[in-house]
């Protein structure tokens, strides 16, 4: 009983409740942008994964093109490229010469989109010349 009386003396009535209310108000105010940030964070993780995946697929396609016979490098589209939920478009045009020329230069553009979407996530471009062989 003595202890309880002492406690009541050192604690003014209702003060803890006021603190609690104020804390809740502050927490509520702060939690709004916090929750937005956390949401954005989660979204960014998925976007980042999407971008990296698209870039890797574009890179993969470019390496394939680099190892193809020059005559076989042509425009093509691939849905669900290599089994992933991404669409890839390879566009090939002649920068110099044409199919009948002794020497010619092709422009190869690779674009990657999320499957079924229209927004291009990544785009890579290169040129390849005819009759350029590697070796000694």
């Amino acid at each position, binding site marked *: 009983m003595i202890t309880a009386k002492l406690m009541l003396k050192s*604690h003014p009535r209702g003060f803890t409740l006021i603190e609690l209310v104020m804390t809740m108000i502050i*927490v509520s105010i702060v939690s709004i942008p916090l929750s937005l940030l*956390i949401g954005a*964070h989660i979204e*960014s993780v998925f976007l*980042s994964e999407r971008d990296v995946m698209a*870039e890797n697929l574009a890179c993969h396609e470019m390496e394939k093109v680099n190892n193809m016979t020059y005559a076989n490098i042509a425009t093509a589209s691939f849905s669900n490229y290599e089994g992933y939920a991404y669409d890839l478009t390879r566009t090939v045009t002649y920068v110099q010469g044409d199919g009948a020329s*002794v020497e010619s230069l092709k422009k190869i553009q690779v674009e990657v989109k999320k499957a079924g979407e229209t927004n291009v996530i990544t785009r890579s471009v*290169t040129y390849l010349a005819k009759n*350029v062989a590697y070796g000694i």
Partner: protein
Amino acid sequence: MSFHKRGVTLVTSVILIVFASVSVLSTTTFIVQRFSQNRAKSRRTQSLYLAQAGAHNALYNFRYNDTVANGYFSLGQTNVDTENYFIVGGTDADMLMVDTSQSYLGGALTQGECQALGQACTDTCNATRDACRAQCDADRDACRAQADANWQACRNACPGGPSGATCRANCDTIRNAERALCDAIRTACRQDCDTARQNCRDDCSAQQDACIDATKLINVFIQNATNSRTVTIDRMIVSWQNARNLVEIVIDGTFVWSGSLSSPADANLSPNFTLDTLPTYYSLDYLRFDGSMAGATVNVQFVMTDGSTQDVAFFPASNNFNFTVKSTGKTTGSNVYRTFEARYNALTGKVVDYGEINVEITP
């Protein structure tokens, strides 16, 4: 509860909020950095393919121009599209092409002149042999005619009728022996002709070798790989294995260096030799030494006026006729770049070496 003070819960909450805010700020910074890194990584990958585009563009231009006249390519920036571009460049040494595929050792006369002299000498040997053999045949014919005359006289001396049969048979035997002797003499005569011809031809070869005294390294050609700028040779550092001295260098009819230096000879050209932007296929007329260089291996390091260098195996002849193209790929508005270099052999039509380098080519 006795230690409970006023505002502790509030203060604790504020501290927690501060901590939470710092954590969120850190996370946000991390996210932004990750996005930035992903973007930079993507740009770097795209830049590498643009750099490759520049190298292939240069190789195409060189090969295309080579079908008309001497091959060449242009330096500078090319826009692939509105966002992407590449810049092609390289050092002076990269642009210097040295054709050593036909190099050989010669002397006071050219190798062709010496070979012509040797051939004339050999032709004379052959003609002499033919005349010699004709004489052998003529001698044989005369010998056989004499044998026939002897036979006829022998038979005339024999008695007629059956009693002379043995005599006539003896005449026939004698004639056959004489004719066989004639043939043997002719065979020996012809062998003598052949031996004389071989000796004659050996002398011709020795004379031809003496004519080609192997003091000059000749038949090397040089060319600028680009039409965008001239390239200038400042020095040639020549190295070989024997005790001879380098005494003279002549390029395109001009004495660019003379002296007497042992290997490695640092020949500072005076005047420097500049290759034009046409580009012209120049003759590096010769490197002259003070003695025969037969059996030696000669290497040359070209030092250009921009300080760049290129090492070339001059002799024995090899399929050198290389240039190096360097290309930097970039995207508009970005500092990210990648640079690709390719070394191309114009004789074999192949890229002999390629890879990425950490140098930015600027227009």
